[in-house]
């Protein structure tokens, strides 16, 4: 610490850049959830608001998407973990010469693009459906069923990888010992192997759920009447996004951090307890006088967990009583004043120009563009355009009255008449 060498400093800088790269987008997105403008942005900061959270919870499609994602996730977890466990057990049982081949086959779905899996799932089950002579509304063409099946084809492989790693540390003698002591194969599996696999099964389940939750490219072919959250988001983004999505992202980030900390804290606690038990004498264990370490002692994860929990409660509490109306009104008032100023400014400019034109008289110049704003982006990148109410993209063609119409923030992006100016304007959102 005393001797900050060049290498040391560069390592710190590298770490800072690395973490900024990793976490920067998340932090900015989270911050935009609390800013009042209707397009997610951090600067300029206008008003602290929680309205995007209520907007989120009033959005039927998002809520429905979350519910469908959870349903699909639950189905995928059950199916993938079961198939993954079966696959992993098979891998340890199979004839050694076949093992490499079997492994490759089982891992293949991970390497196949999700799009291909999506299409093939759809085609395959459609065929099956027809072969069985079932109608279009049968169980086999149900969106939930197809999505769970489609996702599980490759998520099961992930699960298998996780489970195989744990299974490799399993001593087959344990199963033999159970059999030798009179257990049936089922009992040996349930009482010995399964408890041993439990941590890996939990990891695999979490992994499967997350993989299912975030999956888009397979689901997009199979969702049918059950659009998942990712599908809903993708569809929404096509028509422009609001900070309600940031609010959703923030909730997911907080939940993830919370779960990770809780997991870490419980692992650390177990370690501490095990250590204390190991040190304890027989008498201490017998008498029950052994003092186990408290939940928070030397457990930084637990401390962080409590801090996050407190912060969440504090934010929720603030949200309940805080009303940004005053602030929003002030900001709007300010914006109105700014807009008026600009209108007057522009009027003055136009007046000046007309005078010039009148002086020149010779050529008639139809392009009287005050700001040269003829790109498809409209006035998006013009800071002066960040004005208030989102009444939206009415006619913003640059030749006529640019200041009055173009105040939505999106400029004239969504005006079909603008597409001649520049291409692909909408994709920038």
């Amino acid at each position, binding site marked *: 610490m005393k001797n900050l060498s060049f290498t040391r400093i560069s390592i710190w800088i590298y770490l800072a850049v690395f973490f900024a790269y990793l976490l920067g987008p998340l932090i900015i997105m989270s911050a935009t959830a609390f800013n009042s403008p209707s397009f997610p942005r951090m600067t300029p900061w206008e008003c602290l608001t929680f309205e995007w959270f209520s907007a989120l919870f009033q959005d039927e499609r998002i809520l429905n998407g979350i519910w469908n994602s959870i349903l699909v996730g639950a189905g995928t977890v059950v199916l993938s973990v079961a198939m993954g466990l079966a696959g992993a057990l098979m891998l340890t049982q199979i004839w050694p010469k076949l093992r490499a081949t079997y492994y490759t086959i089982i891992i293949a779905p991970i390497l196949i693009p999700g799009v291909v899996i999506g299409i093939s799932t759809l085609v395959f089950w459609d065929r099956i459906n027809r072969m069985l002579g079932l109608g279009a509304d049968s169980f086999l063409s149900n969106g939930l069923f197809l999505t769970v099946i489609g996702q599980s084809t490759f998520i099961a492989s992930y699960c298998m990888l996780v489970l195989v790693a744990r299974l490799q540390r399993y*001593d087959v*003698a*344990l199963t*033999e*010992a*159970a*059999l*030798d*002591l*009179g*257990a*049936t194969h089922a*009992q040996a599996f349930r*009482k*010995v192997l399964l*408890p*041993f696999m439990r941590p890996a099964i939990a990891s695999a389940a979490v992994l499967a759920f997350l993989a299912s939750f975030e999956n888009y490219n397979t689901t997009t072919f199979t969702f049918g009447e059950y659009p998942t959250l990712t599908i809903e988001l993708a569809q929404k983004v096509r028509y422009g996004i609001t900070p309600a999505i940031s609010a959703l992202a923030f909730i997911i980030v907080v939940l993830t951090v919370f779960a990770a900390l809780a997991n870490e804290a419980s692992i650390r606690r177990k370690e501490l307890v095990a250590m204390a*038990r*190991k040190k304890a004498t*027989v008498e201490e*264990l*017998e008498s029950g006088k052994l003092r186990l370490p408290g939940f928070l002692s030397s457990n930084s994860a637990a401390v962080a967990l409590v801090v996050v929990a407190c912060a969440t409660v504090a934010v929720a509490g603030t949200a309940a009583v805080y009303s940004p109306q005053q602030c929003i009104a002030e900001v709007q008032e300010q914006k109105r004043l700014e807009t008026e100023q600009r209108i007057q400014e522009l009027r003055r400019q136009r007046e000046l120009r007309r005078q010039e034109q009148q002086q020149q008289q010779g050529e008639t110049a139809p392009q009287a563009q005050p700001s040269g704003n003829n790109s498809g982006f409209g006035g998006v990148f013009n800071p002066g355009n960040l004005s208030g109410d989102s009444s939206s993209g009415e006619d913003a063609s640059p030749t006529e009255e640019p200041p009055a119409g173009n105040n939505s923030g999106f400029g004239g992006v969504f005006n079909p008449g603008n597409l001649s100016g520049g291409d692909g304007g909408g994709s920038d959102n």
Partner: protein
Amino acid sequence: MSAGVGVDLENLWIRFGDFVAVRDANVHIKGGDFFSFLGPSGCGKTTILRAVSGFLDPSEGRVLIGGNDMKGIGPNKRPTALIFQNLALFPLMKVWENITFSMEIKGASARERRKRADELLDMIALPGQGDKLPSELSGGQRQRVAIARALCAEPDVLLLDEPLSALDLKLRQHMRTELREIQQRVGITFIYITHDQGEALTMSDSIAVMKAGVIDQIADGKTIYNDPSTAFAASFVGENNVFRGRIKQIMGNEALIETNRSGTLLARISTANQGRMKAGDEAMMFIRPEALALAGEGAAGSNIVSARVNHEEFEGNVFNIFMEGDGGKELKVSIPNVGQSFDDHTGQNITLQYATENAVVVPAGELAAE
């Protein structure tokens, strides 16, 4: 001792592909005996144990437990309990849950199990340790928990697969005595697998010496040590000085051996080979290091060997003299330390003598690898 349940192996063959792990084993193990299979690693002794416990089907022949053919009966239905080489205690269960696993399978209540576990913990001298995890116990304690777990299943036959090999020397010696005591207390048949002849000799009622899938000799420890029937048994169990040669003359139970490098020596033909050897046969003669004694100057006869002392070694209870005879013949002599003074003989020629009944002749055969 109660009668107990015996185990019989009849013409037992076990093959893995082309490899023959056990070749025509015929063993009769008396009920209540402590029976050891002794042999170097890879000789098929663990394979036999797995065939008895039911993890392996014999390729040919039969395994009988208490006179019943065990063919088609799985390990969980046989009246055997196996103690694994690595113990295989269930790592996630507490000690008492481990011990009473066999009761849990049968649906016994937690209270019953706890009671039985406490009894067994008392028996293995680990009272009050039931709530620990196996990983919190020492090696010797884990060993005893494994024994208690096997005994809790109330088997007729307890099978032990080199259970002491992971322990350090002191503990190993202690556990030998303890195992023998437990066996005598519960009175059931123990089948013990080991490559350590010390363990086999100290604990067993009977020992089967195995070599590469073949059982060479079955007898009690004393017989195996003093009256081996094959060259392998003689060289594997304990230390032995070997003299290769040819039988010159048979005189009743004794034979005169024309050894390759030490002249003509007289020895006793081992019991199993009496009447089966004739003059001119290739033979091997074995004399234990402790059966050789220093002879007086100028002694002569057919029980005298002379050699030059190479180096000497003081082992505490014995004094070892390593010698080199004519033609590079190596000899080891152990003289018990009974307080006498030892002169340094290094470099000297010494004459040794032995009692004829302590020199054993067997047909020439493969020796145990050093």
